[in-house]
């Protein structure tokens, strides 16, 4: 499978292994409201750039991991972000067909959504090379 999909799959599996409810894209109601049970995380959009050597291809990717929470404070979102950070930052994930060189968090943010829920965004950057 392509590196894009295998990377998503590896991130997805690591999040699920933490006991988190993980989605590619969370299910939505017709009016756009979330049908997923809070809290949950989403990992879908991953931006890939080439990181090729002359004898081998590789990728520099940035994956956005979204955290959605509906509680009275940001604490639940930040707790989940911390849990993911402890697992992923400088951590190892197994990406089929690729060798992981580096995985690290580049940024983390939480905002309040108009429906009263909280939306956390963390960007994880990874370097991989095709084996």
């Amino acid at each position: 499978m392509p590196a894009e999909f295998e990377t998503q799959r590896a991130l997805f599996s690591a999040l699920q292994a933490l006991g988190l409810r993980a989605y590619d894209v969370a299910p939505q109601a017709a009016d756009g409201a979330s049908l997923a049970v809070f809290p949950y995380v989403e990992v879908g959009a991953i931006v890939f750039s080439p990181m090729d050597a002359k004898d081998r291809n590789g990728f520099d990717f940035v994956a956005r991991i979204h955290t959605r929470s509906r509680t009275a404070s940001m604490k639940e979102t930040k707790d989940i972000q911390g849990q993911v950070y402890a697992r992923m930052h400088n951590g190892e994930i197994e990406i089929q067909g690729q060798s992981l060189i580096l995985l690290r968090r580049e940024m983390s943010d939480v905002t309040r959504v108009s429906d009263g829920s909280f939306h956390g965004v963390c960007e994880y950057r990874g370097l991989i090379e095709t084996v």
Partner: protein
Amino acid sequence: MAKVAGRKIKVYAGTGPSAVAVAGGRSDSISINNESTDVTDKSSAGWRELLDDASVRSVDITASGLIDGPGLIGQALGATTALLGQYEVRIEGIGTASGQFHFSSYEIEAAHDGAGEYSMTLASSGPITWVVTP
């Protein structure tokens, strides 16, 4: 004339079919030097004059890329008497320059938030042979 992509110009350790491309290479720079002999004198009417043939001819290779395996570090830190070796520069579809080179330097750059990178320099020792791809 045929243009060539940079990735099709590679440095190989060894010669012939058993030569191995330098692993992880991303950017190579090859300079061919023909040192001139200045023979300017009063009769040159103020213009520099150079001899037709070079005084010293040499080829220098600077290669950089991502660290990939122990090969190059082992060569750089190997026995001091084993620094001369056969290397080739292959330009796909154009030709191959091969000869003996001295492994002059090897540098490692290791940023905490990136992949480990190297840069190395090779200096020719003796004649370099240029064979055009048929």
